[in-house]
Structure formats: C-alpha cells, structure tokens
C-alpha cells in the first residue's frame, strides 16, 4: 500500500525522490509530445486516501531559469484565479535536487467517455498548413469550429469553448506569456453524461514561460537597472497565438495585434480585458504564493515581476483606452480598505 504523498512534504516541498523510492507501486509515464519536455512524467500517488495521477514537471528542463519559472507558474495561477479563468492547481515538489510542479489529472470522473486532446492534434486533423509553433489564433479557433461541425456539437458548447480560448489568450497577454503553443491548449472531448458530444477548454496547465521567467538572471539585473531596456524587452515579448501573418505588424506574432484582434472581435472580450486590468493584482498574487509555499520569493524576482507587470499593464491600458492611474488608485484604495477591515 502506498503512503500518502503529504507525508513526504518537507519545508513546503514534496520530496519526490523519497516518495518514488519508498513506494514501489508508483508508475511513471513519459509525456509524449516533444523532446523538450520528455523529463516530465505522470506519477500514480496516494493523496487524501485516494489513488490519483499527478503530472510532474521538473524545472531542470526549463530553458533558462528553473527557480524563477517555479514562482512565475505559481503567480500566474493566482492571477488567473483573480481573473476568473479556469486553471489547474499546482503543488510544489523537489525532484533530483530541482524544483518541480505537480498538478492532478484534470479528468476526475472516468464514468463518462471523456479524454483530452491538445490544440496541435486538432490542427493536424484539419490539415492546416501550420505547425505547433507557427499557428494563428484563427487557426486554433477554426479547428474548434470544424471539430464541432464534424461531431454535431451544440452551438452554445462551441461558443463557450471559443470564448474560453479567447479569454485565456487575453490573460496570457497580461502575464507576458511567451509560450502558448498549439499543444499548450488542452481540450476535454468525448461524450457527457447525456451521451452528447462535447468539447471544452481544459483548465490551463502549460504556463511554463510567463511573467519574465524567459529572461535569465543577468538579463533581469540589467533590466532592473535600465528602464528603457526593460520597456523595450518587455514590449517585444512575442506571443505565440498571434494573428494571421498578413495582418501582423512585425514578422513575429506580437501581443498588441492579438489583443486588438480579440477586443475588436467581441464586446465580451473587451469587458474581460477591462476586468483583468481591474482585478488582477500582482501584489496579492505574490502574498498568496508566499503563503502557499511558506517561504519568500527571491527579492530580485519579486521586484522584477512587479516592474514588468506594471509596464505591461500601462501598455495594455493605452491600447484599451483605460486610465492606468485610476486603476492603480482603486487597487491601492481597496488594499487600504482591507487593511482597515482587518484591524
């Protein structure tokens, strides 16, 4: 019988190596999508008295900065919660001396015939002339429409799925996400309890590069000392889910193009972008993450995240015609109000 994984938590982090060596019935499955992520694996664990599968992402295979990447993923989870976007809950662990994130299997109820496919699989079926990395937001939405037409899926279900993709992209733009490839969108498909075919965007789980974790430590220090450099580098963070090439301002997908495309498309997207600007609060997210992991986020990364967040927020406010100072005043006022209420 496996022991509960909670018994292996030390200083807030689950010791995965000890858990794997002590529990022989643990099974691991490699993640199959691409070579870059082949150290990620599935683990069968006992948690709260039940056997569950958790997906482990060791940070050793992160391109630049594994430690900051851990904090950026946790911070983004908090920000997505504030914006009301469905996201997976991440736990933290250590594997082979490196930080790792753990997330439970999104599919909790196996009684229905549901499973998960990713955006790249949808694009492949449609035979779009595109790849996992070079796709446009119209490709992925088009693939969802085609899937729904092929499987006779209800219009409301289809529209909700498309809307969720658009909202996820808007939230990504706020969080300076630079890694939203097609296979980073997961979709729950199959039949529901009434045997009706369904498709829904799964809780966001591939949030590896966001909030500046794509910069290395030296770059971060340089940018903190040079405001102009910071503004340029932050502004030029590309966003994978770009608009089609013929409508791009630059050769690469640029976040501003996608934001304009989305808010022009639908009033609901514009309202969502406004609510993100008003409701996403980086200081609150930092506070919650530090509470969760019971330790402090490194000071330089915390400062860096605050600065780049403000920088991006100012740029977005300019795009959307929002008053940045008023938004910040409201947030400051709310914080003071909460403090007074606490006292």
């Amino acid at each position, binding site marked *: 019988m496996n022991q509960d994984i909670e018994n292996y938590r030390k200083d807030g982090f689950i010791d995965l190596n000890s858990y794997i060596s002590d529990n022989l019935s643990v099974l691991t*499955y*490699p*993640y*199959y*999508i*691409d*070579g870059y*992520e*082949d*150290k990620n694996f*599935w683990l069968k664990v006992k948690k709260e008295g039940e056997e569950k*599968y958790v997906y482990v992402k060791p940070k050793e295979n992160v391109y630049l900065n594994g430690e900051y990447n851990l904090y950026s993923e946790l911070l983004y989870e908090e920000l997505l919660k504030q914006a009301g976007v469905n996201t997976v809950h991440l736990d933290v662990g250590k594997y082979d001396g490196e930080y790792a994130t753990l997330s439970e*299997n*999104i*599919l909790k109820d196996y009684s*229905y*015939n*549901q*499973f*998960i*496919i990713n955006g*790249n*699989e949808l694009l*492949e*079926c*449609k*035979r779009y002339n595109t790849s996992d990395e070079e796709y446009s937001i119209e490709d992925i939405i088009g693939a969802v429409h*085609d*899937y729904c037409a*092929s*499987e006779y899926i209800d219009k409301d279900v289809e529209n909700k799925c498309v809307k969720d993709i658009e909202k996820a992209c808007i939230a990504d733009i706020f969080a300076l996400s630079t890694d939203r490839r097609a296979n980073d969108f*997961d979709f729950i*498909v*199959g*039949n529901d309890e009434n*045997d009706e*075919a369904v498709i829904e965007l799964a809780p966001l789980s591939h949030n590896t590069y966001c909030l500046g974790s794509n910069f290395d430590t030296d770059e971060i220090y340089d940018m903190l000392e040079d405001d102009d450099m910071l503004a340029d580098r932050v502004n030029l963070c590309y966003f994978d889910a770009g608009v089609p090439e013929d409508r791009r301002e630059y050769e690469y997908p640029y976040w501003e193009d996608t934001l304009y495309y989305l808010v022009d498309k639908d009033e609901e997207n514009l309202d969502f972008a406004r609510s993100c600007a008003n409701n996403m609060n980086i200081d609150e997210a930092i506070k919650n993450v530090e509470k969760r992991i019971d330790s402090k986020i490194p000071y330089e990364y915390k400062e860096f995240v605050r600065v780049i967040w403000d920088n991006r927020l100012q740029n977005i406010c300019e795009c959307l015609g929002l008053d940045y100072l008023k938004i910040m005043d409201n947030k400051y006022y709310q914080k003071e109000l909460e403090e007074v209420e606490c006292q």
Partner: protein
Amino acid sequence: MSIEVFWDELNILEIEKRDNLFISVVNIENLLLAKETGFPTFLLKQISVVSDELPGIVRDRIACIRGRLKFKDNCTEEELEENIFNYINTTGCRRPTDKFSINIQVN
C-alpha cells in the same frame, strides 16, 4: 511491422508497414462502436490510407519514448529498438488523460 490502435478495448485502426509505406486500414465495425462511446471520428481525418509517414495519432504518442529510453538506459541501437517495442506493448503509450493505446508487432 504492424501497429494496432485501440480506443479502450476496441481495435479501430491497423497500420501495416510495407517497404517504406504505411498502409492504414480502419476497422469499421469497431469504429462505429467506438463512436457510440464518445470517440470523435474527426481525429481520423488526418490519416492517409497510404503514406510515407506514421499517422500523427501514433507518431505523437511514441515520439519521445526513443529519447527518454536512450537517456535513461544509455543503451545500443539494437537494445533501444527492443526496449521501445517492449515499452509500447507494456504501457500501450497510454497516458492517464488518454483513451488510445497502441500495440506493435514485428513480422
């Protein structure tokens, strides 16, 4: 070499490798049964009957096993191939979020 693709217990697709071609055959009866239990036929739309590459549904599932086993065991090419076949047939390349599994036979 032949590869069978299962949807739960139903064998829905067989792929035969002859020379350098991959020939795909759908098991219609099983496909219709699978469709009743939520299998989206949309996922088979990318598969060519005769192709010079493996269908994506199989390719994506076995793509990184090679790298992973090599990394793990540091074995020779022959051992690696045997390990890959064993791995595929033992696990079916099935993830906890998946309903597909794969079986491979060497003729």
